[in-house]
């Protein structure tokens, strides 16, 4: 009985930690980068920041309502080959933890895009990795398990219907929506 409880607690704690990603392995790339953004905001900082968002940032205020954490690592390099996929591997390895699922992956030559979602009970997260020859960006958002809530950012950019399109569901309708969003 006790063993079961302990293993249950371990699994639960593993899942709670599972949505967290440690992006610090990428921080060393900032030295090589021409431009870099290393941002880590926890719930307290987000609350502090959202308190200062005025009506001019209404969209941002709405988006950050349910956010519990934001981490961004974005690097722009002067030359190709300044980073390797081994640098990204440490992040991808963490995304194999229970609860994470890959929404899509696009590989095209030297470019790679991956989007991951985490959803366990009331815990949710999103991870986006974009690797271009001279740019590498990893975005990690944690918040509610409601994917629609996490997708608010995507809606802002007009891509909320991506998963539907990938499955081919309601293609024309979605296409129309996307064009609207683009405008």
């Amino acid at each position, binding site marked *: 009985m006790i063993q079961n409880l302990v293993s249950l607690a371990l699994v639960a704690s593993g899942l709670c930690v599972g949505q967290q990603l440690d992006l610090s392995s990428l921080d060393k790339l900032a030295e090589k980068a021409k431009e870099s953004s290393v941002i880590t905001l926890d719930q307290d900082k987000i609350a502090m920041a959202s308190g200062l*968002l005025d009506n001019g940032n209404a969209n941002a205020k709405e988006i950050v309502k349910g956010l519990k954490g934001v981490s961004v690592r974005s690097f722009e390099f002067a030359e190709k080959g300044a980073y390797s996929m081994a640098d990204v591997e440490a992040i991808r390895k963490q995304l194999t933890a229970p609860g994470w699922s890959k929404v899509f992956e696009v590989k095209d030559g030297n470019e790679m895009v991956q989007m991951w979602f985490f959803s366990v009970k009331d815990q949710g997260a999103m991870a986006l990795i974009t690797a271009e020859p001279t740019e590498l960006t990893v975005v990690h958002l944690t918040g509610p398990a409601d994917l629609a809530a996490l997708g608010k950012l995507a809606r802002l950019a007009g891509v909320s219907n991506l998963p539907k399109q990938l499955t081919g569901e309601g293609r024309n309708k979605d296409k129309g929506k996307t064009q609207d969003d683009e405008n």
Partner: protein
Amino acid sequence: MNSREENLVRSALRRVDPPAGFAERVLARLPAEKSGRKWYAMRGWRLALMPQWAPAAAVLLIAGVVLGSWEAHQIRERKAKAEQAKVELLEALQITSAKIQYTRGRVFRALTAAQNKGGLL
């Protein structure tokens, strides 16, 4: 110095005991003792007029000023941190939005390519 002068000096400088009750009379005439105030509170007429709770009030005032300054400093620091967090948050949202748009373009290109090949869709 001759012996007469020396004797005069000796006699002038010889130890003489005070009259009886001298010390009590001196102490009784001290104003601080009469009013019950501390001797250091009686230096100058301003200090003599100072009530006994004044030092405590001064300490409280100084403590209030120090605490007030510290609190104001904390508020300024919190505000600066919040401003910094706001800038970082907006930058993070901007990068995220831009990268999602980039992602969208990549996915559509991939879908279009698949469609042209008559594959996936």
